[in-house]
């Protein structure tokens, strides 16, 4: 039987059934679909699966739907976190060498808000590492053992990181005067920021942002391709079985809550800073000495959208766990 017929026969089954059994069922059909009676058996099986669903008879497909929802929770929170981090780093770029830094040294209120942002960012990072570590180890292990397609995907973050390090190396060498490029000065000043240096900074931002997007896409694809829900780990000689997505759920909630805290603290901090220094808000303290206002609004908008997306993912996961 041709692959098209096998795919068509599998499509006769309900989507939730296919989510759970589709891939292994198609693999089985490749080996055993020999006669018209087998085809008839598959068609009757599809009919039976629809009846099972109508009767609400099956428990197992719901379990699979739960796992799919938990997986999408982890992916949505991870992607939102990366977008949030890009916005956060842009905020640091806006702050850099601006009058906002001295203000925070004298005014405890915005300094406190910035401390809240820092603490929440550490919490979010820890939660991402703790929740993502078993999943990352499992995917890397699986990719090295049997899944060659995933190896290519996992190379994307490695290459992105290497490019970023290489670019930083070049910027460092320019900064120390070991490399000299026409149109680029060794150290910029507010009144001397040549086009070459601006382009150098744009290149750095582009490599960082595009690398982060490509890496997030690659991790998303690798997780989606890996059909592993449970894994065994052997720390200090003991075997620990972990349900990867259930395990990652609580850290995903911590990450999302930390993101909300950071977003609220950023909004409050911006309000405090711009009340104290209105000239900063109307001035050009954005990246590459562009207008401050659109940068701040843009950063806050990305943070809020990231939080909403993360919480949408968390709500999906919660509904999946409560219906399990």
């Amino acid at each position, binding site marked *: 039987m041709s692959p098209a017929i096998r795919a068509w026969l599998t499509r006769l089954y309900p989507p939730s*059934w296919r989510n*759970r*059994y589709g*891939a*292994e*069922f*198609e*693999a*089985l*059909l490749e*080996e*055993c*679909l020999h006669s018209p*009676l*087998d085809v*008839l*058996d*598959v*068609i*009757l*099986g*599809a009919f*039976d*699966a629809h009846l*099972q669903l109508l009767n609400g*008879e*099956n*428990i*197992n*497909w719901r379990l699979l739907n739960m796992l799919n929802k938990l997986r999408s929770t982890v992916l949505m929170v991870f992607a939102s976190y990366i977008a949030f981090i890009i916005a956060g780093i842009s905020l640091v770029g806006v702050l850099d060498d601006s009058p906002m830094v001295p203000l925070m040294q004298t005014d405890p209120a915005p300094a406190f808000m910035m401390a809240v942002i820092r603490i929440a960012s550490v919490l979010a990072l820890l939660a991402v590492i703790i929740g993502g570590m078993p999943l990352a180890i499992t995917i890397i292990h699986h990719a090295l053992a*049997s899944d060659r397609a995933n190896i290519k995907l996992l190379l994307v973050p490695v290459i992105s990181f290497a490019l970023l390090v290489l670019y930083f190396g070049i910027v460092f060498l320019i900064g120390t005067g070991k490399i000299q490029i026409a149109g680029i000065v060794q150290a910029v000043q507010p009144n001397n920021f040549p086009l070459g240096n601006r382009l150098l900074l744009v290149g750095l931002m582009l490599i960082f942002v595009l690398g982060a997007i490509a890496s997030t896409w690659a991790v998303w694809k690798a997780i989606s391709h890996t*059909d*592993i*829900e*449970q894994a065994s780990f052997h720390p200090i000689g003991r075997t620990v079985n972990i349900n990867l997505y259930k395990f990652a759920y609580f850290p995903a909630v911590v990450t999302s809550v930390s993101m909300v805290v950071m977003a609220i603290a950023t909004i409050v901090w911006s309000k405090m800073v711009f009340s104290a220094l209105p000239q900063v808000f109307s001035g050009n303290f954005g990246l590459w000495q562009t207008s401050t206002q659109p940068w701040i609004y843009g950063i806050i908008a990305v943070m809020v959208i990231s939080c909403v997306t993360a919480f949408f993912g968390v709500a999906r996961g919660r509904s999946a766990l409560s219906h399990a």
Partner: protein
Amino acid sequence: MASNDLGRFSDPGLLILASLAGGAKHGYAIMEDIEATSGVHQGPGTLYGAISRLEGGGLIEALPVDERRRPYRLTQQGASFLRQYLASMQRFISIGFERLEA
């Protein structure tokens, strides 16, 4: 679904349980084992209809996928159910033989 009620798939379900009692197997290996031990050919639709019910009832459980094939193994509940079922079959068979010989 009660764990001892396999519905329309009671025979395929029992054959699968008996096959998995010999160790974890994926779908095609279960089909081959059943054909070799009982002479019964199970179509893919029948097989997976029974597998989904057995898994839903907690009598078997899925293991991680190995090259697109997913092996299944008997759970404790499945082993206990199979043992009880075979014991009751054995009593029934003994009674049947005793009556035939009487």
